[in-house]
């Protein structure tokens, strides 16, 4: 009998927490916004998401097979990256764009660093920014009108609407709410909240994103401090400097609800691997992200600064971690 006894160091019990469960929880948190995106932008966006997810999973498995590593697609993290890539694409983007974006995310931003846990940058955002640099037209022209498929001659199941050459003028929305110069379609705050505006598949519905974010907070996967400081910083800076009639005339709510701010703040900046480890560090990251986002929106070329801000702050994460080490118990007490 004694031979079968296992001898290890304590503790001998563990919580039920697992990496799989965490990744599954993020998938669950993304369900509302995924459903909202597919509803708003039609079956076509579901296909785009599926292609992105599939490409990510296949890329990860292939690389691990080739390198003779353990195949880790079972931890759902590759699928998650793929889903994120899809959600930050314009709904009219060609399908191959999603595939290439996901493949890049996994191959370069994740596996090249050593896989899950070792990457420095949020893989999905790295993929998106690569796509923005390589195919700027496809990445900024594929906006669709929400619920375009309700128009005559279309149906929810219409697939070919956004084939880059055959795109129909009727379904194109001229720009997203944050686009500079162009005349955006009129929208109300309610439209912004529910998502009835142009934009990436997963960024338009603030309501769905907040439900998912609340779930993440409830499951203690993220702390509210990071998204709160991110959103508040962007909103306050845009209110202070973003108005046409001088200081403090900017539209706070519009800048909070439009664009990818909520998606970025709750789901991208909070990525465990690439965000600071302490809450204090996460607050710094949130404020930094908010400031950079506002700077890009105010002075930058692209209409949106969320992706860049998060990637830039990702680079600062090790530094933030270094300077936010908590005071050890019993230190500096008299």
């Amino acid at each position: 009998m004694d031979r079968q006894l296992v001898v290890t160091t304590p503790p001998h019990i563990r919580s039920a927490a697992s990496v799989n469960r965490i990744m599954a929880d993020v998938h669950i948190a993304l369900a509302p916004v995924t459903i909202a995106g597919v509803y708003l932008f039609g079956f076509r966006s579901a296909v785009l998401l599926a292609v992105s997810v599939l490409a990510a999973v296949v890329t990860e498995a292939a690389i691990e097979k080739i390198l003779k590593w353990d195949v880790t697609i079972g931890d759902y993290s590759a699928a998650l990256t793929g889903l994120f890539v899809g959600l930050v694409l314009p709904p009219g983007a060609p399908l191959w764009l999603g595939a290439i974006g996901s493949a890049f995310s996994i191959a370069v931003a994740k596996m090249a660093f050593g896989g899950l846990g070792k990457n420095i940058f949020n893989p999905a955002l790295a993929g998106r920014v690569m796509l923005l640099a390589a195919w700027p037209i496809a990445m900024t022209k594929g906006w669709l009108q929400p619920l375009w498929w309700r128009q005559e001659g279309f149906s929810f199941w219409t697939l070919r609407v956004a084939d880059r050459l055959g795109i129909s003028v009727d379904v194109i929305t001229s720009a997203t709410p944050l686009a500079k110069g162009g005349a955006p379609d009129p929208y109300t705050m309610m439209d912004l909240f529910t998502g009835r505006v142009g934009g990436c598949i997963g960024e338009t519905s603030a309501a769905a994103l907040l439900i998912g974010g609340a779930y993440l907070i409830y499951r203690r996967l993220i702390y509210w401090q990071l998204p709160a400081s991110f959103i508040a910083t962007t909103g306050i800076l845009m209110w202070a400097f973003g108005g046409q009639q001088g200081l403090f005339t900017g539209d706070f709510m519009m800048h909070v609800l439009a664009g990818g701010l909520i998606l970025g703040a709750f789901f991208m900046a909070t990525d465990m691997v690439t965000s600071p480890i302490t809450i204090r560090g996460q607050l710094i990251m949130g404020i930094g992200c908010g400031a950079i986002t506002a700077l890009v929106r105010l002075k930058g070329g692209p209409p949106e600064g969320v992706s860049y801000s998060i990637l830039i702050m990702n680079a600062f994460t090790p530094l933030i971690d270094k300077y936010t080490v908590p005071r050890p118990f019993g230190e500096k007490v008299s």
Partner: protein
Amino acid sequence: MLKSVSRTFRGGIHPPTEKQHTEKKPIEVMPPPERVFIPLRQHTGAPARAIVKAGDHVKAGQAVGKGPGFVTTIMHASISGEVVSIKQRNHPVFRHCETIEIKSDGKDEWIFGTAHPRGQADQLPPEDIKRIVTESGIVGLGGAAFPTHVKLSPPPEKKISLYILNGAECEPFLTADDRVMQERTEDIVLGLRLMMRAVGVARAIIAVEANKPDSLKVLKAAVSRFSEIEVVKLQTKYPQGSEKQLIRVVTGREIPRGGLPMDVGVAINNVGTALAVAEAVCDGKPLIERALTVTGSAIAQPKNLKVRLGALFKDVIEHCGGFSAPPVKILMGGPMMGIAQYTTEVPVIKGTSGIVALAAESLNIVESQTCIRCGRCVNACPMYLIPSVLGILCERHKFEEAKAMGLMDCVECGCCTYVCPAGRPMVHMFKFGKMELFKQAQKKREKEAK
């Protein structure tokens, strides 16, 4: 006075308490075993030396081992009989230790010291209390087994203003302290007052977690006569029974890094220790038996037992009906900090607070993955460390860097490892890192000595 403490320490976890198996079961006296094995090292400090030889006849309560220095304790025979052998044997903590084997003569004759009537214990001079505690071989019964007489003799420059009696018992599964508090309430309070008298402290707090309402009730009633003693109800949280965390909760004071409770004016002991002190002073009984919990998913009849020191785990488990399922792990102590045993042929020692035998289904043995930087360990760490980074540093043999980040402050409570979703064995890496640092320091000392 029953005060509820709403403030708590930062960090910690809430594992399932698993106390329901034994918390309602009174402490049962296990009959003295046929043979006992008394290791000469059952405490923190230098091992004792045998003062008997093979063939000697001893009585229960007779000293059989004495220490060479101050930080060591006297060992007593726990049954009467013949000393069979003195040799290296299995030890639940140190793997091997010089051990005195005694074969019972079946008579169970006891030889005790002077008994001081309970009513007059108040008049005993502090020096006498300390002497009796020393002669009785009492150590902290919470698990760390630090010699109690050392704790009762703080250096005069340290002013102790508060005595804390630790009844937190935060480890899952263990209920022996809970039962002792209910069944020996008066003696625990008496033991506390004796220790207060020995150290010269005028104020005391008995701290008990909220999940022991019965103990809280009886203790509250028992201290109502003493205005200087207060019972405090703590939130249920692990590792509340850890000295540093408990003092933080009760007093708001933090023991400085590398310091001791006396550095913040506190003396602290486990409730079981107080009982042992009361029995030593008022009954003349040295520490030859202790209460412990035998439990776990592989034990047929989980029990709280009073066991003679030196009884083999095997015999104790047999007394609890043996195994109900094949045990995968057998622990001395609770599942968070207990020490896994490779055999059941190890003796119960002074620090054995429980024997926990776990079947496969209660163990969640997982493969270690890469850290995903989720930060759960950081929030769980009651010492405010960053376990994830410390673990990686130890893994990469960067011990000096780990030391600079507070590796030596780790109390090995296991919270980080409990919550880690990637299944990283962090406590294991810390133990490894600490050992390597210890070895390096030793080498350095040897080099300098040359």
